[in-house]
């Protein structure tokens, strides 16, 4: 399947504070009562964006300065908890096209890569520098360079980031959705199924 390579993504950014931001926080379970992923964008971070009376909180996503942000910046263990793909789907549909964090939970990471949303890891110090830069100037354009493994800003920041080789390769080669390659190995799959006695 020919897919678009993702050598880099860019846009203005928003910092969401806190460690261990779980997938229930990103998309509360009640919004998963659906049979498609359509429409999940408006519910991203819903229960921290709105209080129990439906009034907007002071969450960064409610801050008009960051209304057009398409890069999310976060702390450690972002996306922990449930395996729900609804979490990265809701971020994508909200308008995010990349995430920079100190670290990520594994299932969230894999789900995001498969949706062509690069997730890169930066040091705590660099995340703090990036946070200060985007809060000082919310119009700062942040580029995640998947090819060079750097995050650069229009204000001149240039920080090293990491990601697993396989995720980088998948994004750069346009094979972030592996389905075609998996299908191509059909004969080997049949042989393995028989070898292991599954069929």
């Amino acid at each position, binding site marked *: 399947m020919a897919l678009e390579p993702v050598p880099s993504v860019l846009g203005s950014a928003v910092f969401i*504070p*806190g*460690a*261990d931001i*779980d997938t*229930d*926080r990103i998309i509360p*379970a*009640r919004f*998963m*009562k*659906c*049979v*498609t*992923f359509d429409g999940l964008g408006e519910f991203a971070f819903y*229960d*921290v964006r*709105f*209080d*129990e009376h439906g009034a907007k909180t002071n969450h960064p996503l409610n801050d008009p300065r960051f209304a057009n942000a398409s890069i999310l910046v976060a702390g450690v*263990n972002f996306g*922990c*908890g*449930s*395996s*729900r*793909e*609804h979490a*990265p789907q809701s971020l994508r549909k909200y308008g995010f096209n990349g995430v920079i964090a100190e*670290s*990520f*939970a*594994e*299932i969230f990471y*894999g*789900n995001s890569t*498969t*949706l062509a949303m690069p997730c890169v890891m930066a040091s*705590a110090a660099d995340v703090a520098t990036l946070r200060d830069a985007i809060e000082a100037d919310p119009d700062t354009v942040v580029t995640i360079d998947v090819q060079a493994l750097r995050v650069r800003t229009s204000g001149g920041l240039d920080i090293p980031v990491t990601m697993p*080789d*396989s*995720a980088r*390769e998948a994004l750069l*080669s346009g*094979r972030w*959705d*592996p*389905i075609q*390659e*998996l*299908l191509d*190995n*059909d004969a*080997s*799959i049949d042989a*393995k*199924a028989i070898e*292991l006695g*599954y*069929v």
Partner: protein
Amino acid sequence: MGKSLFQKVWDAHTVGTISDGRKQLFIGTHLIHEVTSPQAFGMLRDLGLKVKFPQRTFATVDHIVPTINQDAPQDPLAAEMMQALRANADDFGVTYFDLSSGKQGIVHVVGPEQGITQPGTTIACGDSHTATHGAFGAIAFGIGTTQVRDVLATQTLALEELKVRRIEVNGDLRPGVYAKDVILHIIRLLGAKGGIGYAYEYAGEVFDRMSMEERMTVCNMSIEGGARCGYVNPDAKTVAYLHGRPYVDMTDFSATAARWLSFASDSDAHYDDVVSLNAADIEPTVTWGISPDHGIFISESIPDPATASTPLEKASIEEALAYMKLDAGAPIKGVKIDVAFIGSCTNGRISDFREVARFIQGHHVAPGVQALVVPGSQIVAIQCEQEGLPEIFRAAGFEWRGAGCSMCLAMNPDKLVGDQLCASSSNRNFKGRQGSSTGRTILMSPVMVAAAAIKGSITDARELFDLNTPASVA
């Protein structure tokens, strides 16, 4: 150098290497439920693909089913999801344990009780608590919905190999310390992100002695420690548990059992990390915050941000205490509760209900506390009924409900209201987890939940019940 169970199962199931360097891993058993599968079937239809091995996928409905009037959800969205699963199972020829089958339940309870979960296999499910099946010596992990599509279409997944951390717990657990306390303690020590990149091998005398159900409780919460999968090596207990179950081929069982046992880690296996703990150091454990690694012993006080060692830790404690409305430095014992929940894929099996029923007779749930008991499956519910357990729970003031995930994640009508505080035998204390954006969760063992329900506040069950009598279940 020998191999760990993880390496043996991984190597046996590797089909090849794809272009980005990941392995293509054969998935022996695929479990699906109503929440994370409908979009995957939609993707299959869009791509014009079939299910490659329909006999290797098993479906049930658990997350959204009501626990009262189960087959008639008032919520039209829930009804639509149940109908979608029925239609998808029929269209693609997948076995579906529906509400009328008598075998419905939480997917991680159904797999083992049907004997679908077997040692030396790979198991995937669009649910992060799939690690539960690791109790049988399977490599079992949660996947996203696009990966559910991959398994349906190809019976394989593209994955990175994990490192293996062996967690040894030796010595004797003290009376009143349960499997739940052991895993909450491990997560507290190693952190919610400590297991990222690892499979956890639980080993040592404590896990050797545990029943299969206790092992499931431990493996279930691996993901809460960041580990995508966790397992216990198969032994005679594993074999005995599976003997005669519906999906176990009994034609040459001794050969089957020998093959299962051959997957156990070699004595000289390589581990990327080893952690050793002393069982006697573990006390009944409860959470105080908003992450499963926010655990303390029942005798301890709630952490004080003033004593935090880093600014990040200070901010984290402050955020958690503000959400939980708890006082820094105060004892956790005595915190008032509103709701008690016994159930979930962590602690919703027959042994959990038997153990609680041993102690609650002669007691009653405190005024103003709603206490829910939700069996993990229809089969667990029937077993409980045969043993007279619902009457015991009802007499003590607990509500006895139908099988499902219920208030663990509150996708059905069982939800906290406002900032109610729930003593819960489930697995996550995240903000809003139990259905109210301000609802609060304190995780603990089922016996500790029962003690809290009876006292109306967080309680050391050892002070309320005589926990020195040996358990009836080995």
